[in-house]
């Protein structure tokens, strides 16, 4: 004889769902994936390639906050909580799936931009410099220091013969020889603008390919600027050019 089913009790809570059907579990997993992306970016060095350093702590903080939210959400999927009875419904299922695709793609496929390609799409940085209060000795100046100094003191003859030790990537310029350049970034790569210096590549041999990072040692010289204006400009005359890997922090503030 089969036992009779228990009487129906409308006030009893519905039975808990299997773990894999609980919405809180998947919601927590999706938040954890966003957290993973931000935290991974904060430690694997990609932020140096994407954002100005001032924003790095914000990204790490966002990753920690999202991780905490993910843990709290996962705790809602435990048996005995109200979350254990909430089923993952269709719209949220797609939300979780799309989140997983995007975050996993971003984590496993790190950014590898071509700086020369990016710089070729952008106008030169034209920031007008105030008179510089502090100027490093010539051989200690970075490429950006040189560009800023030339804006504050535009007479190229003042610097002819100065020793130069700079690094940057090779940036092709339409109608003239490639320059050695750096990208200035105020916030993220989207607002990067290039600054560059002309180089007399023929002094040491063939011109390196576009996008190649190089360290240059040489001296500054004056030459006629391209065009019919009769203006002069500074050019780096290299004594030695050494290919180098892209620096860990390639963007300049």
């Amino acid at each position, binding site marked *: 004889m089969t036992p009779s089913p228990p009487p129906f009790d409308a006030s009893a809570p519905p039975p808990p769902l299997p773990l894999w059907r609980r919405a809180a579990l998947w919601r927590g997993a999706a938040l954890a994936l966003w957290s993973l992306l931000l935290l991974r970016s904060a430690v694997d060095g990609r932020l140096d390639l994407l954002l100005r350093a001032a924003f790095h702590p914000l990204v790490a903080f966002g990753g920690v906050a999202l991780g905490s939210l993910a843990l709290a959400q996962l705790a809602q999927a435990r048996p005995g909580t109200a979350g254990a009875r909430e089923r993952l419904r269709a719209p949220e299922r797609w939300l979780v799936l799309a989140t997983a695709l995007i975050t996993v793609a971003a984590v496993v496929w790190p950014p590898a*931009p071509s700086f020369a390609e990016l710089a070729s799409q952008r106008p030169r940085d034209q920031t007008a410099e105030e008179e510089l209060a502090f100027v490093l000795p010539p051989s200690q100046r970075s490429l950006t220091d040189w560009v800023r100094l030339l804006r504050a003191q535009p007479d190229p003859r003042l610097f002819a013969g100065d020793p130069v030790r700079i690094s940057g990537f090779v940036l092709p310029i339409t109608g003239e020889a490639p320059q050695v350049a750096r990208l200035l970034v105020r916030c993220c790569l989207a607002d990067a603008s290039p600054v560059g210096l002309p180089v007399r590549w023929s002094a040491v041999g063939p011109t390196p390919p576009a996008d190649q990072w190089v360290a240059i040692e040489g001296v500054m010289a004056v030459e006629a600027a391209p065009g019919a204006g009769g203006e002069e400009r500074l050019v780096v005359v290299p004594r030695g050019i050494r290919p180098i890997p892209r620096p860990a922090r390639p963007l300049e503030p």
Partner: protein
Amino acid sequence: MSAAVLAQRFATAWALFQGLLIEALPFLLLGVLIATGARWLSPGGRWLRRLPAHPVLGPLTGAGLGLALPACECGNVPVARRLLAAGTPVGTALGFLFAAPVLNPIVLASTWAAFPDRPWLLLLRPLGAVVVAVGLALLLGLLGEGALLTGELLEERRLSRPLSELSLLERRSGLLGAPAVPPSPPPPSRPTAAELLRHGSTEFLTLALVLVAGCAIAALVQTLLPRQWFLTLGGQPTLSILALMLFALVVSVCSSVDAFLALGFAAQITPGALLAFLLLGPVIDLKLFGLLGQLFRPRALLLTLAGSGLMVLLIGQLVNLWRR
């Protein structure tokens, strides 16, 4: 275009996409956390509904709320959505949505840091943002809530309001001949931590995906269109404004740093175009388009684009006439 160039371009777009997304996500999270806090502090939006509903005072109050929220536009959208869902007068919420990305301490400080030698810009940027916000609130107010807000938001907004404020059709229930003013319902209880967590998590996950779409479009457009195109018209009084407005739509950077970006090309463009760039970007851009789509119906979204574009163009023209 060869396959190698195409691959290089795609790799650059992918990096731009990641830069835009990773920079915006913490701000989006901040906005969702503030919105969730508002949900807890004001269950059912009782005091939010008491904010002024006057067509001009409302948007001005909303704009003033921006001084308390140091987030850029991505963070503002979830907060504005919360305001609208809680039953805040539409004009007030729109004033906040459109003006707060400029009228907040971080943006004002960064504008001052970038342009200490242009005091007129420090005055006209917040003033212009308020004018555009009030103008947009008035314009969008003409549509009426039903044609302005998405169905889901409208439903949430109706649930937050007392039945006595709704028409019989909006209530979707009731009896003809019943008392005109139904007995007031008990005050809504404070949501539990689990409810807040569920709501906040779903909101973040939804908006993050919308942000992904916006960043992807912005990164692709930036990679395919040379930036020089926008700046070649820099000296023309009207065309420069239009070009920089288009540039603001495409570049999609946060309002907290757009002044530093503008510093790089300020010397090449007219003053009106510079102001137009700083005014339009915080209201609408490619990255924001999807996020705003979570609040507005498509027609309202197009009206926002057209209305803000027209007002910013006029402001830019006036500045060019004045500073010529």
